């Protein structure tokens, strides 16, 4: 499908439709709408088939994590943070642990660094697999969704083996990780990667060489490059617009400086381009996981000894730790007043930017049938909007 020479960009000014004119229809999409990737809601004003105005409504999932954390011991927050972004909990665990380690001046053993990197790459893959199912599903291609969710389950099986939990792994504990790899685990990882890679090749063939998919996705949700810095767009959404930005490279945390990879960059900045880019990142992720398995030290401690978690006090200070998650920059801002509980924790989730501010503008002028597909193409997780 050919892209328009000058893609449509909705004006920044919000038109105020006269709802009493009878010309418009106010339509709520969500909060239990299958196309909304989770519990949030879009209040759409439509004219005919196209969206004139959009307002995002969040709060259906609000559990007040940031506040809850101020009432819990440093260590007690460890099982809590993973719930902030359900499909991709490990980034919360990593950012929280890394922030604490920075504030408390703890050096994490090398083995833990590698295991953390493995854990993060595995969950990236799982998260992308879930996304690709959502993206295909939003355009009505259920077959792909079935496949990719199965592949995600295979990765979750690996997590179950490693950490004892499928969804909430609670594996990256402050000080290191909770356990070494079980016997045979690395072999299972490689086997699973082979299966996933094969399946991704099938998906690539079926989904990315698909006339109808192209008709739906090409040209949809064009993000002009000048939006990236204005709106704080990060991750694949920014890379698809031509920005070579990847915190794994730019900040070089964990074992990433020791891995060989190049950030994937696109140019067209529409839904199809973003999907293509994410698919490329999935293949890259499989490669990274293989590299990590090669590098993983077999000996050594996996956790640094910490003070008694019941009395652990962290010296006063503040820090911001960020990591590149599947959706972009994921960060924890943690303030300690020297006590046994955080004074303040603020979570920076990319979904807030993408699903609220960008989405509201991007969706204007789009056919109502495409709203779900557009939203998924931004790859957002409502639970992380409401922390």
């Amino acid at each position: 499908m050919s892209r328009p020479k000058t893609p449509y960009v909705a004006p920044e000014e919000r038109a105020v439709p006269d709802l009493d004119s009878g010309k418009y229809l106010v339509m709520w999409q969500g909060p239990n709408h299958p196309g909304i990737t989770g519990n949030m809601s879009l209040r759409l004003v439509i004219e005919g088939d196209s969206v004139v105005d959009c307002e995002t409504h969040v709060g259906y999932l609000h559990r007040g994590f940031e506040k809850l954390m101020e009432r819990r011991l440093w260590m007690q927050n460890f099982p809590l943070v993973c719930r902030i972004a359900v499909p991709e909990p490990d980034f919360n665990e990593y950012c929280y642990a890394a922030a604490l380690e920075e504030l408390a001046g703890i050096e994490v053993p090398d083995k833990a660094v590698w295991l953390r990197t493995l854990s993060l790459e595995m969950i990236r893959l799982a998260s992308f697999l879930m996304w690709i199912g959502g993206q295909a599903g939003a355009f009505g291609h259920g077959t792909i969704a079935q496949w990719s969710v199965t592949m995600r389950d295979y990765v979750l099986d690996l997590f179950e083996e490693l950490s004892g939990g499928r969804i909430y792994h609670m594996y990256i504990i402050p000080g290191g990780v909770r356990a070494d790899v079980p016997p045979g685990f690395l072999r299972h990882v490689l086997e699973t990667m082979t299966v996933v890679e094969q399946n991704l090749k099938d998906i690539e063939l079926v989904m990315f060489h698909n006339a109808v998919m192209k008709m739906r996705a090409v040209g949809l949700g064009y993000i002009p490059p000048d939006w990236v810095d204005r709106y704080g767009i990060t991750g694949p959404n920014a890379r698809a617009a031509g920005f070579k930005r990847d915190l794994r490279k730019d900040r070089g945390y964990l074992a990433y400086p020791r891995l060989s990879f190049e950030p994937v960059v696109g140019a067209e900045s529409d839904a199809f381009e973003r999907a293509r880019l994410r698919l490329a990142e999935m293949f890259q992720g499989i490669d990274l996981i293989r590299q990590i398995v090669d590098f993983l030290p077999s000996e050594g401690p996996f956790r640094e000894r910490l003070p008694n978690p019941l009395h652990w006090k962290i010296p006063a200070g503040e820090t911001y730790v960020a990591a590149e998650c599947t959706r972009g920059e994921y960060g924890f801002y943690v303030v300690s007043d020297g006590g046994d509980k955080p004074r303040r924790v603020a979570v920076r989730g990319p979904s807030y930017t993408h699903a609220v501010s960008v989405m509201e503008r991007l969706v204007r002028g789009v056919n109502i049938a495409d709203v779900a597909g557009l939203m998924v193409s931004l790859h957002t997780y409502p639970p992380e909007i409401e922390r």
Partner: protein
Amino acid sequence: METGILVRVGYALVSLFVITNYGLLLIGSMARISAKVQGRVGQPVWQPYIDIVKSTAKRNSIGHGVMFYLGPVFRLAGGVGTYMFIPAVYGSVLFRNFSDSGDLLLVMYFIFFGQLGMALGASEGGHPYSAIGVSRGLAQMTAFEVPFALSVIAVAIQYRTLDITAIVAAQQGGFWNWTVATNPLAVAAALIAFLGMSMHNPFSIVIAPQEIPIGPPTEYQSNLLGMLQTNRAIFNGAKLVLYMNLYFGGATDVVTMVVKTFLIYFINVFVGQAFPRFRVDQSIRFFLGVPTLIGIASVIIAAI
């Protein structure tokens, strides 16, 4: 004569019973095949029976006026009507139905009848967005009716009759007599329209849960939904038999009928699993494009 009519009615009821069960099993087995493609074990083949029994057993506590209740009735009447005027098995007394009493136009009318009734009923469903769902469905229907109608016209011209039994009769005597061999363009146009008619991908617009899940499946519940589910089996059976009769030489025995209709239906699934769905505007544009041209071409060929 009196008894003759009664016997025919009795036969027709038996025929209807057979086609209903066949339709349900067909849906069940197609779901099973779809599951296979998706990497699943899938539901039991008899799952549609379970669904109908379950739906029918449920209590209905919502009503939105007479038209709301009549919607499924119209729909079922459309399905039964369509089937009743098509001979299911050529030359069979039992499966002759009332094919000598109506012609192709009547059948086509019945195909529409159900949809329109549905639209009226669902519109009264009390949901403010019902109209959106119904209009999306009807818009697409209007679009795929164009190539389908053209194809039927081509067939009518070719066989110089609107009597389905006569059309089947004309195709007897081997594959080369079937419409698919004699006028492949008409069949192509009709089959593309059939994809739209069956609401499989890429034309599953009305039932698209990610878009506007508004319309009959959300508005109706309990026994009304059970009625719709039953109709789906009958209506599918009727359409398949019609297609078989018009384009694939009909059937002279039940086994042939089952094989042919199964294969015709499988085309839907075969395409449906491979593609996502169109937007409604894309769908309309699609039907009014290539399939319509093919239809026109087939009419011209038949006319020449």
